[in-house]
């Protein structure tokens, strides 16, 4: 019988199992040891592994990232946690100029096995500075790996893979995915880079949904099925290195690619995926492409603008419909309550 657990618990279990297995794994960051334990993802670790291995830190993102690198250089495997991805902007120097580069610029003499967990906020007015999905920055820089698991299964497997990886891994979570429930094996397992996941089959259009937008794409798949449009849905899971082949193979069949990102489009992951697919399929077949992502503005707090700021299943379905039918006719499905797959209740 499959065990169903929540995304947060999957993360907790992954950390727990890796810490159990390997004394060089440490977890730290603001509030990892506090009563809320980062939505429960670090719950119990302090009690089990002690304050040297699990500790809260001062509000010093820059130095603590540098310290994580130093620990990694000494052979530890630090996991550094941030409750908002926006705060990584304080750590960019260490991430971009040191973590990403140390191995290469020292000619392979060292490596930096560290994991940086950070969360993307959404809903209840998180607003300008608590909602950004800035992972394309990390995709841009050689030497970093980037992963954004969307299911509890992948959350556990990717965190284990990230901890075991000998390189710096940016581990991207989405605050709403934390409420996601799903089957998760109890024994440790790893979901390493290399393989994107086809999460729904279809022949008419390929939807690539990144991070939380994967959920919205799966909902869109159902809306489209109602119109007899077969949408193949792909979850890249690892964004760097990116398994472009799975996407290319799908688009080779469907001829249509809609990338729905949980970030801005300009110079974003969606631009990259489209550019790579075009580079590979040009001359072979005609392809229609489209990007959806955050509106090209700062995230507003008021609910009606916030709704318009994000793609959602219905707007995704509408865009896909338009690409497939190419009729110029616009269509937008009615909201279906049965497609509300993640239950969560704010404010948070």
């Amino acid at each position, binding site marked *: 019988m499959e065990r169903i657990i929540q995304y947060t618990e999957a993360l907790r279990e992954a950390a727990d199992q890796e810490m159990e297995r390997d004394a060089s794994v440490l977890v730290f960051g603001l509030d990892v040891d506090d009563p809320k334990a980062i939505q429960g993802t670090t719950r119990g670790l302090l009690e089990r592994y002690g304050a040297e291995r699990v500790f809260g830190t001062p509000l010093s993102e820059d130095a603590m990232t540098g310290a994580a690198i130093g620990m990694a250089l000494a052979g530890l495997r630090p996991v550094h946690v941030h409750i908002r991805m926006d705060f990584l902007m304080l750590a960019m120097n260490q991430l971009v100029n040191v973590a990403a580069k140390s191995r290469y610029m020292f000619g392979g003499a060292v490596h930096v096995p560290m994991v940086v967990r950070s969360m993307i906020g959404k809903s209840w007015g998180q607003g*300008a500075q608590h909602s950004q999905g800035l992972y394309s920055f990390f995709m841009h820089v050689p030497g970093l790996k980037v992963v954004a698991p969307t299911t509890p299964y992948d959350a556990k497997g990717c965190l284990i893979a990230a901890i075991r990886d000998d390189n710096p891994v940016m581990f991207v979570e989405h605050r709403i995915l934390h409420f996601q429930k799903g089957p998760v094996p109890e024994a440790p397992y790893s979901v390493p880079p290399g393989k994107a996941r086809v999460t729904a089959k279809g022949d008419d259009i390929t939807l690539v949904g990144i991070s939380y937008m994967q959920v919205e794409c799966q909902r869109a798949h159902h809306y489209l099925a109602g119109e007899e449009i077969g949408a193949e849905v792909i979850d890249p899971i690892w964004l760097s290195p990116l398994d472009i082949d799975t996407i290319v193979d799908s688009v080779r069949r469907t001829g249509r690619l809609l990338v729905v990102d949980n970030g801005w489009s300009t110079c974003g992951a969606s631009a990259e995926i489209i550019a790579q697919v075009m580079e590979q399929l040009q001359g072979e077949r005609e392809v229609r492409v489209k990007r959806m992502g955050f509106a090209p503005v700062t995230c507003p707090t008021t609910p009606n*603008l916030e709704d318009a700021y994000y793609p959602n299943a219905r707007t995704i379905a509408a865009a896909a419909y338009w690409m497939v039918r190419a009729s110029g006719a616009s269509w937008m499905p009615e909201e279906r309550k049965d497609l509300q797959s993640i239950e969560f209740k704010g404010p948070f």
Partner: protein
Amino acid sequence: MAEFSFFPSTERKTAMYERIYRSLYRIRRVEERIAEVYPTDTIKSPVHLSIGQEAVSVGVCEALRPQDVVFGTYRSHALFLAKGGDLKAMIAELYGKVTGVARGKGGSMHMIDLKAGVMGTSAVVGTTVPNAVGYAYAVKYRRENRLVVSFLGDGGVDEGVFAESLNFAALKKLPIIFICENNGYAIHTHQRLRHPALNICDRAAVYGIPTERIENNETLRIHERVKSAVDAIENGGQGPYFFECMTYRWKEHVGPNEDYQLGYRSREEAEPWMRNDQVGVLGALVEESARKSIEQAVDAEIAEAFALAESDPFPAASELMADVYK
């Protein structure tokens, strides 16, 4: 004791107590009202309440002149109101209405009111400190007779930008006063788990900045000490100044509830602060009938602000794309 307390006429003192009481009471009532409304989910904005800490904003702002400006943190309802920010626009902002201070686009963490000299608040800790310093540079460059106050929490002290900002402010002798609201905690983590020594003032003093720690969350003492710094700068002296104001947050870090059950702190720790509640303390200095009429006026004003905010319109869909660039 600074000069004003030696010479104030009884009338001036009475008026000041009434003003301060009104400000404290008003902030408290506004935030209590927010806490009441919050469970209805009509305020879709993370609220960091200042309940218990009002003394700092009120004491400081009473010492400021209208031309002075303040920069704050995401926990700035008290600062916003104490500095004279528009109550209606503030509540409308919490409700996400187009009549809000940021047209519904900023929420509780991004309060602003240029007319009142509230220059903006930020959700990223420490971030407004250098902004305030830069503003003070402009003030000094233009030889303006005003000054800047930068509010930050004890958590903000941890960030490297704090050291960088104080160093630069001191180097350029800027007309700025730093107010560290030390409520002991950054979220659930006590200062002693973040700092090797509880000596925030020393961290400022190494830059040659005059510093003072003010205990016990006392509105009048805060007012008096900050006033003396404001006067010194007004009279041609140089900044910066630094004050560490010891205070206490009664509610949870974010949200409307108490959180003593979480275990990171005890109600016993809170009790002395609650006994020294500044709304009560200042209320006692105001004559009964004056107090009543202040309270009535404030209650009515608040009721009106909330009612208006509820009925005000949300921004039009077209606002989504507005104001990215000027």
